[in-house]
């Protein structure tokens, strides 16, 4: 049995031979193959754009989560200042969850970034080989008899076919990765929209908000009352109080 890495090369060559077996008119085969190469190049470019879009989406989620961290942190402080340790604890627990999500997102963005770089490298190689193939195909068409041309086509096509298979695999892997990330991104979006991320223990984000708001409203009323008392005490606010 051939070793693993030779078999790998044989699989690609056998895929290619299917293509070459069908070749009857060398010139036509060359042009057709060139067309397919150009199409694959477009696919890589599209793949790179798709990965970039997914990455952007995850970066937006990162921004949202960072905002919610700031908010939860200040809510926890407000709660402690108001002597409500229970609320502070709830806010900090939510903050921990948001931090975990944020870490996951960083890892995912990193992975997408790697996919993007791989695709870009693959695009560069494919583009260079297509260009080489293009000039070679013109030479073959112009200078060789049909029989000779078959041989030359075989050589040129094997080299480029291998790159096409490689690039094709890179596109598929990037697509898989992007789809996985999008599914996860949707899940995180839903969590953020449902308030679950900001509110996973108490069951209701507005409850925490409401309690903190009412504490802060109470304080404001206290402060204003204090101010009014001082004014009334000074004997100048009688009218306002009667209103």
């Amino acid at each position, binding site marked *: *049995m051939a070793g693993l890495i030779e078999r790998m090369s044989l699989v690609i060559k056998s*895929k290619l031979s299917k293509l070459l077996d069908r070749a009857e008119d060398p010139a036509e085969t060359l042009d057709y193959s060139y067309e397919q190469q150009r199409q694959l190049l477009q696919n890589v470019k599209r793949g790179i754009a798709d990965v970039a879009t997914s990455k952007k989406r995850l970066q937006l989620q990162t921004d949202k989560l960072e905002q919610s961290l700031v908010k939860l942190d200040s809510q926890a402080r407000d709660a402690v200042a108001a002597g409500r340790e229970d609320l502070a604890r709830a806010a900090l627990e939510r903050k921990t969850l948001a931090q975990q999500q944020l870490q996951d997102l960083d890892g995912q963005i990193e992975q997408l970034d790697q996919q993007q770089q791989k695709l870009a490298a693959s695009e560069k190689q494919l583009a260079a080989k297509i260009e*080489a193939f293009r000039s070679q195909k013109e030479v073959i068409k112009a200078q060789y008899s049909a029989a000779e041309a078959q041989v030359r086509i075989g050589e*040129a096509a094997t080299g480029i076919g291998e790159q096409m*298979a490689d690039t094709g695999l890179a596109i598929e892997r990037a697509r898989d990765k992007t789809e996985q990330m999008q599914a996860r991104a949707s899940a995180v979006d839903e969590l953020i929209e449902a308030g679950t991320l900001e509110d996973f223990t108490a069951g209701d984000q507005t409850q925490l908000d409401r309690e903190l708001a009412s504490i802060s409203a109470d304080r404001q009323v206290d402060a204003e009352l204090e101010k009014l008392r001082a004014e009334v005490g000074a004997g100048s606010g009688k009218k306002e109080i009667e209103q």
Partner: protein
Amino acid sequence: MIARLMGEGQYRVDDELRGQLNELDDRAVAAMEADDEPALDGVLDEMWELVRSRGERLPDDDLSASEVVIPPSDLTLEETKQLFSEDGLVPDLPTP
């Protein structure tokens, strides 16, 4: 001979390196047959490292075919196995 690192590019390797790759290849086959993914990944990483450090990188516009194609180690065992099947991971090339 010419070796391709999948997703990275092609390298020209000398006979000595080729011999080393063959030895590693035997271990890769054994690891795959034993369903030993960590061992397979380790062997593939060693192959990549050897080819990268001691092979001579071919220019991108070279149209030579490769005698050996070395898959990346970040595939799962299942994916690596699929690479070797006719209708596996490598997409079919378009036929007229």
